């Protein structure tokens, strides 16, 4: 774990740059994180990110893609359009949440 400066704010991140403190995140930061990985946020993007944030708060873990689709009601196809190639990891990164548990 180390400190990183994102949008002029000091936040805690892991080795891969995923934020580790739920409370340090804000939507402004989320937009900067998105830009870091080449994504410009739209309402559709925010709908997914807000679901991740809320679900993490109630469940204590980053939702899987399946959960975003079944519980968050956003089709998987759309998630791949919004967050190309690696939607689960990209959403977690932008939402300031731990990378989805590497299912071993």
């Amino acid at each position, binding site marked *: 774990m180390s400190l990183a400066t994102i949008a002029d704010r000091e936040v805690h991140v892991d*080795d*891969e*740059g*995923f934020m580790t403190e739920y409370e340090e995140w804000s939507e402004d930061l989320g937009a900067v994180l998105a830009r*870091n*990985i*080449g994504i410009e946020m739209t309402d559709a993007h925010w709908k997914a990110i807000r679901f991740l944030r809320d679900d993490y708060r109630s469940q204590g*873990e980053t939702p*899987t*893609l*399946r*959960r975003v689709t*079944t*519980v968050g009601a956003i089709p*998987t*196809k759309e*998630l*791949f359009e919004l967050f*190309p*190639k*690696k939607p689960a*990891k*990209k959403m977690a*990164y932008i939402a300031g949440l731990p*990378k989805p*548990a*590497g*299912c*071993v």
Partner: protein
Amino acid sequence: MKRLLVLGAGTAGTMVVNKLRPLLAESEWTITIVDQDDVHLYQPGLLLIPFGTYSPDEVVKQRRRQLRAGVDLVLGEIDVVLPDESTVKLLDGRELAYDYLVVATGTTPRPDQTPGMMGAEWRRSVFDFYTLEGASALADKLAAWEGGRLVVHITEMPIKCPVAPLEFAFLADSHFAARGMRDRVEITYVTPLDGAFTKPVAASRLGGMLEKRSISLEPDFYIERVDNEAKTLVSYDEREIPFDLLVTVPLNMGADFIARSGMGNELNYVPVDKGTFLSTRWDNVFAIGDAADLPTSKAGSVAHFAVEIFTENFLQLIKGEAMSHDFDGHANCFVESGGGKAMLIDFNYDTEPLPGKYPLAHIGPMSLLEESTINHWGKLGFKWVYWHALLPGRKLPVPTLMSMAGKQPDQKSETETFEKEMMR
């Protein structure tokens, strides 16, 4: 009389009842175990059926024969659990009341969950190998196959025995080489993960093993459907992978009665405490083995270590004491790599698989994350251990919690930031 009810007489459920029966007085406790049939399948053996190493009748025994005297086996299909009433209803109308419930109904491949998977090509050019029927059908197919594009595919994580599809790819390579037809087979390994395996050191070693065998890797592939006419896998981001022979690991899900009972997550796994397996919602319900939502491998080794912890805790619980043993997510798996060799991996919730020796530090005799003949014999010998020591609940000479002794943590790989990875 107190009643312990266990659902599922597979690896975890059988171990639970066999361990607890001698420890709970028969004058005080009944132990009942429910299953839908009387066939106990040695699941690690399924992988070896397609290649003719085992025949189907070598991997099954009667469930009742694996149970200690004093354990009641009820055969019947579970309709629903009513956890607030501490009762289980069977489809035939029978009702079983309990003081404590252990859900051990595992996880099952569900090819019906992916559009087209069970289409016209099912068991013609599309196969699974996690069922006895699938593995046997694939054995016949492979024996007659003349070559082409073999695709080994994982639908979605988690799956039981997550190394098995890799092993299948390694064994296929070795099998076709031995038949003198490796040059007529193109093997592709398709996975929703971003590499050959999840954890960095193992992913890079296993990835290297694929490369060495000229097996191409197609990562980050999240399947939308199987196109039976074109014989392709189609992903959500519209990538297509053609196959002549598809060996797929379908979506794995917990039992449907768990959903009907309102006890599961979106894949029907029961949310439990990671250390004790006690349900997060009911204080007389546990879930052990693949049926639980633990963030570790769905594997027999995990079930084994988990049952050791559960037994100790359960004895404390019924005495009114606090459960003092905490599970660490310990898993270890043999990985058959073909040509009479295998490697072994050993890990837990926090520590990824690392190289070293096992079970004795520096001595072994087995090597971690390295191929060796002795590991392969370990894997084959495990079948005997499973029936004669593991299921009866005998203590095996391996530590329950993972040990760092003999491991080489300095081999940790360099991590790149996600931002860099995405902008590369």
